[in-house]
């Protein structure tokens, strides 16, 4: 069955037609071309497809597109503004928070959600916030450092 829905993605209202069984991940990647949202497992175990749904981190492979109707979605593509990269993105570049890069957009989203809650998180809080985002390159230490530095740079 097809459904007409609207999503507010990265600040922009988008209308699309989705199938009942279509996941938010598929809708974002295939219908809206937001391929920065990565497919890693389809079972909510790896976090590569993390997006913010009304401010909360979700694995977009575990959410049906119809469930997300009218919600505000933020993906890694929406972090940078006309003024340039988001402080998290800059910090990940400067502190080697990315190796192969496949987990990077999910990591950024989890980090963004954390910084929305806590402006100056402790290392322990960052570890906890990232526990659902797998990085096979093992870049966790530099990812944590990137987030710490970005949080300190923020006003």
């Amino acid at each position, binding site marked *: 069955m097809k459904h007409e829905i609207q999503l507010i993605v990265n600040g922009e209202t988008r209308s699309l037609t989705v199938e009942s069984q279509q996941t938010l991940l598929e809708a974002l990647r295939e219908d809206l071309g937001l391929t920065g949202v990565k497919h*890693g497992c389809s079972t909510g175990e790896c976090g590569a497809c993390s997006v913010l749904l009304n401010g909360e981190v979700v694995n977009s492979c575990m959410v049906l597109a119809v469930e997300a109707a009218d919600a505000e979605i933020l993906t890694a593509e929406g972090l940078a503004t006309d003024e340039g990269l988001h402080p998290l993105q800059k910090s990940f570049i400067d502190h080697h928070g990315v190796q192969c890069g496949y987990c990077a957009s999910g990591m950024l989203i989890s980090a963004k959600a954390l910084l929305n809650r806590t402006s100056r998180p402790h290392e322990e809080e960052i570890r906890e916030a990232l526990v*659902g985002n*797998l990085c096979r390159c093992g870049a966790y230490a530099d990812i944590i450092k990137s987030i710490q530095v970005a949080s300190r740079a923020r006003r």
Partner: protein
Amino acid sequence: MMISRKPHVIGKPFPLIEAQKKLTGVTCYAGDETITPDMLHARILFSQRPSARFRLDNLDAARHFPGVAALLTGQDLATRMGQTIRDRELLAVERVYFAGQPLAVIAAETPEIADEALALIQVTYEDLPAVLDIEQALTPGGPQVHPDFDDYPGADALNADPQQNIAHSLTFTRGDIEQGFAEADVILERSYTAAHLQHAPMETHGGVAQRQPDGSLTMWMHLQAPFLQRKIIAQALHMDPAQIRIITGCVGGSFGGKVFVSVEGALAAIALQTEGRPVRLLLTREEEFAGTFTAPAMRAHVKMGATRDGRITAIEATYDWDVGASVDAALFHLQAVALAGTGPYAIPNATIRSRAIYTNLLPSAPLRGLGIAQVHWAIEQHVAELAEMLNMNPITMRQWNLVKGGDRLFPNFTMHANGLQTCGLQVIDAINWRPAAPAHSYHAPPGAAPKKRIGQGMAIGWSPIILSDQCGSSVSIRIDKDNLCDIIVDGVDIGQGLYAFVTQLASFELNIPVEWITVEPTDTANYPPDWEATYHNLLWSTGHALLKATAKMKRQILTYLAKVWKEPISNMDIVDGEIISYASRRRFPLLDLLENGAGEETSPPVFSVTATYRPPNAGGSIDSLLQSFAATAYAAEVQVDEKTGGVTILKLAAAADVGHALNPESVKAQIKGGMIQSVSFTLLEEMIFENGVPRSNNFRDYPIATTADMPQQLHPIVVEVPQQSGPYGARDLSHHVQVGAAPAIANAIYRAVGVRIRDLPITAQRIYDAMQAKRAEEA
């Protein structure tokens, strides 16, 4: 050897060039390849049995299912694949040799249609005896994994005993092993095992293939070794390698799992059947686990003898590897293991065997660490136990026996100055080593409350850097007004920072701004059909090729202006993007030259060079291709909960001798990543098979390290003992950083609770059971 003449580039932090694209979601990975909107989607039918004859029925229903464009089975395409030995079929023909073997491949309008159509195919298996582990494989008179082994192309190249399921066997000997054991005062014999592991890249295998109007095939693939894959696929499909073009892109993790051909052969084959419509294949996570490769499991037996004063006189070690149903991808692994098999010790009498054993399990491919990590799992526990038997400090014992510069190890190889001692000393320093800490002995009286106990352990390791015949590299540079400086390398950036390295070096050597340089992804169309570029040791091979190419390029640019200026180029140089003459003090910005030419030549010039590097002893024996040994060391401080056997790593230090850290922060990032991955391999990871069928098909059943598993303290240490023949004295890092973590952690656990775990992974259950057994023994 050239050492930094412009220290603001070489030896200083340099960000990863690709990082910005990766962090803004722009980078294209396998699943993002969209060649045309009407692309077809491929799905593969995988075998569910490890050893069986099989029949496929109802194929016509699948073939004619609405939306299906093409279907292929082994009956349509009976062909074999492999680099050295073609011991696997592209699609199974009459029997299956492992669960996860492709039986059929289909292309359809959507992945869902493809799945529906595949589900119509009825597979009937007639089970045959299966060989499921090394023990069973080596039992005389047991079933044979490959009864037709001798007929496989390339079988002659191997030292095999197919009846015993030995696919290949390598032996290195020196000295007189019997004499060596006769001189020993103590002899220790132990067995060690290590589980099958998964590469588990976050990006699953995938790509797009399209037949071109001239019958050739273009593949957009995200893999580590495009030239090797081109060769293997072309051979399997009876095509000229020139007829296959592989365009590479960013790789979302490989760790060795995207070097050899697994499902790419099926993708290529089906794309030849779809009348030019491109076909995309993207594996699910389950297929990534159960349908590509594992890393081989190990069973090792080590016998070592030493004199009372701690001199190791002899070692006899056999490393058996369960390579699954195909040895082809594991041959390089076997060589590395044989060369590293004594551990980093100058033992005068040694016999080292490295054997690949066929089983009816998923084929194995090299994994970061190349088996050398598992060799040290055995050796570095063994030496620690031997030291204890001799009542010696294990560090002193190691120091006395370590290989030194000048030691002659193999007929063609004399050890160079190395960082073994330094790495060892630095790691123990980093965790505040307590030298006098005695090995814990379990003395808790019955009924005493269990405690959390702390222990420290360390390990030293070495890894051979072997430049195989396929370790050539080619670099092309083009400088013109449109693209400024475009560089094409034949290696692939898999996240290790190859493109950053190339940019950094080219900027330094050509003395031009970093911003002018673009590194283009590899496209096999730019190389001769027989080109075999390296896919490992890129710093070495690509580094040498790049040094040659930049020197040629600089000469070409200077020669151009030298003609105009009528000066010898010996007086000229490029400095910060300007061509200058030291003699006439003239200057000419390179950008102006590219825009307008110079003198009479008013058309914009285009400068273009290609340079190739080949390993010095290509075609020689293994030990003549051995370039150097990289040194590493690990030290760990762990806390073991006696109640549960659970391990917390409090401190982990790793030192790696990289010769010369060209990009120190990047080197440290690689070391830290390797440390986390090693912790994961050591404590968490084990590929489980149930009656030969992979049961670890997701991240719940095959957990990998998360931020929750990180050691509380990480100490990455860079050691620099220049590699005389390496670019700028540098040495590759890659595999070596995996070596030593597991035994250091095991030695620390022993110090904490007095039990030795000799089977990887070190699970809480294993520690708990060992403590129980020890308690029972002491009671």
